[in-house]
């Protein structure tokens, strides 16, 4: 697959450490929710670094691609993407990539999304894609995040679930919870899975995304609660990203 060039047309902070980059990619062939791109940065001495970033935006006709990047303090690429890059800069990308960790608007079965930290990004593309397509597929999102200030897309998620009874949203805080939150800060566990995700008898398709350790434990919990491993699709971001 060839490298394409995108131009940064907008930048928006999602949290103190994460930023959404909107790119205009003239030869973009379109994408499916859940896919990602590889971004390549090349230094003046020719050294280059490639990293994968999920596409946050729904498929659209404007050849627009949004990425949301979480900054890792000692990372090679993410500090550049969240602090240095400016509007009208160019970025090299390869994609769209992937045909397995995707949600297509023709899917009508119940969908269980489970995000850990920045793992929300491709799942947000699915939620946005569902809204844009006018799909009524029943969606549930379980979003595990360190603290309230670390939530991406909070207002948009709230608005989408307020106006739509088949779009359900649960936050699980791992370090700090809002005042009066019913559940003390902790990792997701069997009880939370049992109480907030689709009963396995409804045979939901599950999409689990986040740091590798999070994906391993969340998919194990989904399997123990009766979900068929064949119905669980996973995407691992590596040891990077937030520790859950």
């Amino acid at each position, binding site marked *: 697959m060839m490298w394409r060039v995108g131009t940064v047309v907008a930048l928006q902070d999602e949290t103190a450490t994460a930023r959404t980059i909107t790119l205009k990619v003239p030869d973009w062939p379109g994408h499916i929710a859940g896919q990602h791109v590889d971004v390549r940065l090349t230094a003046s001495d020719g050294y280059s670094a490639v990293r*994968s970033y999920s596409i946050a935006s729904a498929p659209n006709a404007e050849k627009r691609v949004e990425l949301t990047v979480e900054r890792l303090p000692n990372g090679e690429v993410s500090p550049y993407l969240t602090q240095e890059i400016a509007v009208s800069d160019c970025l090299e990308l390869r994609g769209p990539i992937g045909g397995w960790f995707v949600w297509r608007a023709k899917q009508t079965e119940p969908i269980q999304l489970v995000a850990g930290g920045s793992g929300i990004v491709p799942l947000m593309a699915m939620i946005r894609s569902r809204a844009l397509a006018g799909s009524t597929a029943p969606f549930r999102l379980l979003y595990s995040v360190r603290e309230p200030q670390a939530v991406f897309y909070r207002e948009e998620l709230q608005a989408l679930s307020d106006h739509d009874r088949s779009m359900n949203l649960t936050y699980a805080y791992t370090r700090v919870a809002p005042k009066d939150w019913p559940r003390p800060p902790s990792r997701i566990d069997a009880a939370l899975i049992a109480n907030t995700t689709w009963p396995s008898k409804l045979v939901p398709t599950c999409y689990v995304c986040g740091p590798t350790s999070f994906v391993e434990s969340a998919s194990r919990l989904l399997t123990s609660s009766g979900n068929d491993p064949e119905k669980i699709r996973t995407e691992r971001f590596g040891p990077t990203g937030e520790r859950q």
Partner: protein
Amino acid sequence: MNPNIDDYLDGNAAAGELSNIFAMDVTAAEGQCAHCGAIKRFAEAHVYMQGPGLVARCSVCQHALLRFVSARQRVFLDLRGLTCLILDTSQLVESGR
């Protein structure tokens, strides 16, 4: 192989590099492990990035399914850990590629 170490990725992370070789998406492809016989989507393989290359391991038995090294305008592809790889051609039509 220590199963507690989470320094691996999965087949999704390898798909960009492998798109230089395969015309079709590999993440949705089904592959059979030559060691344990498990048939899994390539997306589910555990992927370790290693300098100029990568190794994809069976998520069930951890044996190497695929090794890939790209160096000096050559690509080395070792597929002896896979008895079979079934690619889905409908993806070609869908993406217009």
